[in-house]
C-alpha cells in the first residue's frame, strides 16, 4: 500500500513543522538546506509520483554525509546542538524514503521526539505554543493514515479543516488528564545522566567588562529577571541590582579577581534603613551570577556570597531560577584588609598615562578623598555626553575617552572613573548589574530587562566604608530616574499606551508561565495540596490525590464512552416510551408487536380499575401521534408532563 497524496502532504507538513521549530538554532545554511530537501521531495512526489523513493545511490551518500556535516559544524556528534541537527536530518531523510503508511508512522513517532527536543532549547511560552501547534499536523497525519470509510472524496480544504478541528478538539479534551499527570508525576531527585545545560542563545551580563561589550545588551528587550516585593517598591534611584564585582584591570578589560567567600567577622554591614524582602525569578543565561538589590543582607540559600557581596551559583544558570533575598537600600559596609586595598588600587603599567596623571594631580590638589570624587563627577557632568554609540577608542582607551571623545555610556564612565580614583589613591571597584526596572502594575511585579544593564563604582572612603558612586548619573540623570527607556530612542515605538499595555500583559503571561510551568518542581509538588490544608504533602498524600483525580477523570471518560445517545425520538415518543417503561416495571411490559390500542386493551383486561388513569393518556398519545402530521409543542410537553405525573397505584393488586 502506498501513501496517497493527502497522506504524503501531511507527512511532509509534519516534518516541515518540526524542522522549522529547530531552524532558529541551526546555522542558517543548514536550515535552508533541510527545508530545500523537504521541498524537493514534496515536489518530486507531486510531479513525478511514479518515481517512488529516490534511488539508494542518492539516499546512501546523504545518510553518510549527515554525521560528517554535523561533525564538521560542531566538532562533536553528541550534545544538544549536534544531536538536534542529527535528529532533524534523520527525520528529513526518512521523509525522503517515505512511501508506505508504515514509513509515515515512523515519521510521526520520531517527529514527536524532535518536537520535544525543540523544548530543550527554549522553554518559554511562545515556543511551547509553537510546539503544541506542531502536534496538530502530526495527529492529522495519523488520522489520515487510517482509512475513514467515507467513499465520497471531499475537497481537500474541507477535509483538512474537518480533520484539523477534530484533532484540536481531541487535544483540548486531553488537557485535563495531561495536566493531572504533569502535576503528580514524581520528579527525579537527581538526573539519570549528566546533562549539559542548554546553550542559551540569550545574551546577558558577562563576567568581564571592556568598553563596548555591553552595547548589544542595550538593544535586548528580553527580561533578565522579575521581582516581587513584600515591602513597598523602592524608588527608581534605589533600584541598583548588584551583580558581579570587578577588581582587576588590565588596561582594557575589567575582570573578576578570585576573592574568597564572605567572612562576616571582617566585613561589617550595617543597615541604615529597614530591610526589603523580595523574590527574584531569574531568566537563564550563560553566567552564574545572581542579582540582588544593593546591598543584600542575607544569603540566597544554596548559593555562595563572596566577600564583595557577589552572589553566585556553582554552575551557569541554565534554567529559570527563583530565590528570596533581603536587602538594605541604605547601609554602611566597612572592613577592608591590606590585600583588598592593594587589589582595589592596582593599575596596569603603561596604560592611560594622562588619566593617571590627572588622578595623581587631584590627589595632591584635594585633601579629602570625597573632594576627589566630587571633582571627577564634576568633570564628567561638565564635559561628557551620554550616547549608546560612542566613537572607537585606541590603546589608551581611558585617555582617549577622558580627553578626546568624551562620549559613552555606563561602561565607559565606570571604567574611567575607576581609573581616575585608583590613580588618586582611592580604592575603587566596578560593579556590573542592572539599574532600573519597570513596575508592572497589573501583575504586581517588577521586570528588569537586559537593556537595563548597567555598571557603576564603589569607592572606599576611610570614614564611610564602601560607597556606591554612579558616574553615569552625573552625566545622564534621566538614565537613573527613568530607566534605560529614557535614552533609548530605538525603544520609542512602543511608547504608545496600548502597545505598552499589550506588552505588559504579554509579560505577565510569560511571568506566570515561568513561575507555574517552567519552574514547577518537587517543592511545588509538595505544596499542591495546600488548598485542602496539607502544607507539605508527602508521597502518600500526593498518591491519594492523584488516584482521586485519575478516578474522577476515568469516570468522566467512561461516562462519555459508555453513554448512549437518546436516539432521535421526539418528545412524544420519549414520553410514550417512559409510560411503557413505567407500566413495564409493574409487570405490563409492552411486547414489540403491540400497538397502543392493543397494549391498553391488554392492560385494562387485567386491571380495569386503571382505566381512569390510563385511557386519557393513551387517547392523547394516539391523538398526538396519528391525528395530525405536525405536533404542537405545548401539547407534546403537556403529554410528557402528564406521563411524568400519572399515578399508577391502581395497577397494584387485582
Amino acid at each position, binding site marked *: 500500500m502506498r501513501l496517497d497524496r493527502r497522506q504524503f502532504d501531511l507527512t511532509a507538513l509534519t516534518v516541515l513543522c518540526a524542522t522549522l521549530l529547530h531552524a532558529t538554532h541551526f546555522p542558517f545554511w543548514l536550515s535552508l538546506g533541510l527545508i530545500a530537501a523537504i521541498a524537493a521531495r514534496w515536489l518530486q512526489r507531486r510531479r513525478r509520483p511514479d518515481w517512488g523513493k529516490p534511488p539508494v545511490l542518492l539516499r546512501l551518500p546523504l545518510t553518510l554525509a549527515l554525521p560528517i556535516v554535523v561533525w564538521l559544524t560542531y566538532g562533536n556528534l553528541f550534545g544538544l546542538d549536534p544531536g538536534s541537527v542529527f535528529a532533524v536530518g534523520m527525520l528529513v531523510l526518512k521523509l525522503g524514503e517515505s512511501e508506505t503508511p508504515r514509513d509515515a*508512522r515512523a515519521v*510521526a*513517532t520520531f517527529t*514527536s*521526539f524532535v*518536537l*520535544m527536543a525543540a*523544548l*530543550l532549547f527554549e*522553554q518559554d511560552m511562545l*515556543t*511551547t505554543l509553537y*510546539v*503544541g501547534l506542531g*502536534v496538530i499536523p502530526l*495527529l492529522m497525519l*495519523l*488520522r489520515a*493514515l*487510517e*482509512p*475513514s*470509510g*467515507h*467513499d465520497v472524496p471531499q475537497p481537500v480544504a474541507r477535509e483538512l479543516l474537518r480533520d484539523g478541528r*477534530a484533532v484540536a478538539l*481531541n*487535544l483540548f*479534551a*486531553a*488537557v*485535563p*488528564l*495531561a*495536566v493531572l*499527570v*504533569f502535576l503528580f*508525576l514524581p*520528579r*527525579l531527585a537527581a*538526573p*539519570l*545522566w549528566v*546533562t549539559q545545560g*542548554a546553550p542559551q542563545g540569550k545574551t546577558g551580563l558577562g563576567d568581564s567588562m571592556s568598553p563596548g561589550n555591553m552595547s548589544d545588551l542595550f538593544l535586548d528587550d528580553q527580561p533578565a529577571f522579575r521581582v516581587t516585593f513584600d515591602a513597598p517598591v523602592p524608588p527608581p534611584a534605589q533600584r541598583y541590582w548588584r551583580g558581579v564585582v570587578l577588581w582587576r584591570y588590565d588596561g582594557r578589560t575589567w575582570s573578576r579577581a578570585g576573592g574568597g567567600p564572605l567572612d562576616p567577622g571582617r566585613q561589617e554591614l550595617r543597615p541604615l534603613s529597614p530591610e526589603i524582602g523580595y523574590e527574584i525569578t531569574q531568566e537563564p543565561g550563560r553566567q552564574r551570577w545572581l542579582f540582588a538589590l544593593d546591598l543584600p543582607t542575607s544569603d540566597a540559600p544554596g548559593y555562595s556570597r563572596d566577600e564583595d557581596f557577589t552572589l553566585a551559583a556553582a554552575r551557569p544558570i541554565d*534554567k529559570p531560577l527563583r530565590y528570596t533575598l533581603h536587602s538594605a537600600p541604605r547601609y554602611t559596609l566597612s572592613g577592608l584588609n591590606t590585600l583588598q586595598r592593594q587589589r582595589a588600587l592596582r593599575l596596569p603599567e603603561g596604560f592611560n598615562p594622562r588619566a593617571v596623571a590627572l588622578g595623581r594631580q587631584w590627589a595632591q590638589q584635594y585633601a579629602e578623598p570625597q573632594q576627589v570624587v566630587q571633582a571627577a563627577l564634576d568633570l564628567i557632568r561638565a564635559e561628557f555626553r551620554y550616547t549608546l554609540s560612542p566613537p572607537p577608542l585606541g590603546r589608551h582607551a581611558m585617555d582617549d575617552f577622558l580627553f578626546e571623545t568624551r562620549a559613552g555610556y555606563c561602561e565607559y564612565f565606570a571604567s574611567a572613573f575607576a581609573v581616575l580614583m585608583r590613580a588618586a589613591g582611592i580604592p575603587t571597584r566596578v560593579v556590573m548589574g542592572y539599574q532600573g526596572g519597570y513596575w508592572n502594575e497589573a501583575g504586581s511585579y517588577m521586570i528588569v530587562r537586559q537593556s537595563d544593564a548597567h555598571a557603576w563604582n564603589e569607592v572606599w572612603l576611610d570614614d564611610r566604608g564602601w560607597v556606591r558612586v554612579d558616574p553615569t548619573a552625573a552625566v545622564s540623570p534621566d538614565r537613573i530616574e527613568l530607566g534605560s527607556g529614557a535614552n533609548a530612542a530605538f525603544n520609542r515605538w512602543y511608547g504608545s499606551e496600548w502597545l505598552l499595555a499589550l506588552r505588559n500583559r504579554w509579560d505577565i503571561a510569560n511571568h506566570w508561565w515561568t513561575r507555574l*510551568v*517552567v*519552574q*514547577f*518542581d518537587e517543592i511545588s509538588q509538595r505544596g499542591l495540596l495546600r488548598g485542602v490544608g496539607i502544607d507539605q504533602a508527602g508521597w502518600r498524600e500526593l498518591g491519594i490525590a492523584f488516584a482521586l483525580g485519575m478516578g474522577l477523570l476515568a469516570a468522566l*471518560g*467512561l461516562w*462519555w*464512552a*459508555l453513554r*448512549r*445517545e437518546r*436516539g*432521535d425520538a421526539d418528545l412524544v415518543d420519549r414520553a410514550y416510551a417512559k409510560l411503557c417503561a413505567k407500566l413495564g416495571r409493574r409487570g405490563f411490559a409492552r411486547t414489540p408487536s403491540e400497538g397502543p390500542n392493543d397494549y391498553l386493551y391488554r392492560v385494562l383486561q387485567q386491571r380495569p380499575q386503571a382505566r381512569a388513569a390510563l385511557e386519557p393518556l393513551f387517547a392523547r398519545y394516539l391523538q398526538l401521534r396519528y391525528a395530525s402530521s405536525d405536533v404542537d409543542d405545548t401539547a407534546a410537553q403537556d403529554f410528557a408532563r402528564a406521563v411524568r405525573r400519572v399515578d399508577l397505584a391502581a395497577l397494584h393488586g387485582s
Partner: protein
Amino acid sequence: MSRLAALNASWLRLLAWAERRLPALTRLRAKEPLPIRLDRRRIYVVPTWFGLVFAAMLFVMSIGALNYYNNPALLLTAVLGSVCVLSMLIAFRALDGLSLERVQAGTCHAGDPLPLELVFAAGSRLRNGLRVEIGDVAAVFAALPDEPLRATLALPTQRRGLLAVPRICLWTRWPYGLFRAWSWLNPQIEALVYPRPEDTAVPLPQSGREAQRSVAQPLGEEFGALREYRARDPLRAIAWKASARHDRLLVREPEQLTGEDYVLDFDALPALDLEARIARLTRWVLMAEERRTPYTLLLPGQRLGPDLGSAHRQRCLRALALL
C-alpha cells in the same frame, strides 16, 4: 522452518483451546439471532504494534524531559499520552451501540463470490473507519448519524449447499491507529450456494414426450401478454412503454408455455457420480432458462415443473444445492 511451523501449529491449538474454553472472549460458542447489538461486554480494545512503539517513544520522551527537568517537554509528552488514551475511548465509541440488523445474502454458484450485505443500525453517532472482516475478505466503511449502514462483502464459496455465514470481525483503528477495538459477530445466518454448473455444455436431452415442435412466439406488448411486476423479475423483462401507459410496472410474460419442454432427469444420468450429475443438471437448468423453454426437473423423490422463469429456476437450483 519446521520449528516455525510447529510453533504456528501450537499457537493455533492454543487459539482453538481459548475459543473452546473462553467463549466470552472469542464469541465462537453460539450463533446468535439478529439483531446483535454491540456493547461494552463484547468490545475489546488492545494497542496495536504501532501504539506500543509510540508508547515506547513517549516513555523515552518523558524520561528525557524528567532528566532535563524540562517541564514544557514533560507537558508535551503528557498531552500526547492523554491523546492516546482518549483515542482508545474514541475507538470504543466507534463500535459501541452499533447493531447488526440484517444480513442479506445474495446467491451464487459454488466457486463464485457470494455477495453479502450487512445492514447495521448506527444510532445518532458519526462513526469512521469501521472495518468488517470475514476471513480474508474485508471492507471499510463509515456511518453517518441516523442512517442505516450497509457494508457489502464478497464471500468466497467452495461447496454447494447451505453456507453458514462465518463469524464476522468488526474492528476499527480509528482515529490514530494506536488502538484496535474489535468485536466478533456470529449471526445465525445461512446463505444458499448453488451448485457449480458443469464447465462443458452438454446438449440438453430431447424431451421424452413427443410434442409438436413449434417455435415459441413472444406475444408482443398486447395487454394480455403482460402481468404485474413481481420482485426479482429481471429488469429487461419490464415493458417500459406499457408500464408508462398504465402507470405501474408491467412485465412481459416471456414465453407461451407451448411446444416442446425438457425433462431433466437425475436418474437418467447413471454414468456420472453425484456431484457430476448435479453439475450437469445445473448447467441444463441454466441452458433451458437461457432458451426460454419450459423444463421439468426430476430428482429422487421430487418433481419440479414443467415451468419456466426465475422462480422456477430458483426452486430447481435450490433443490439441486440441497440434494
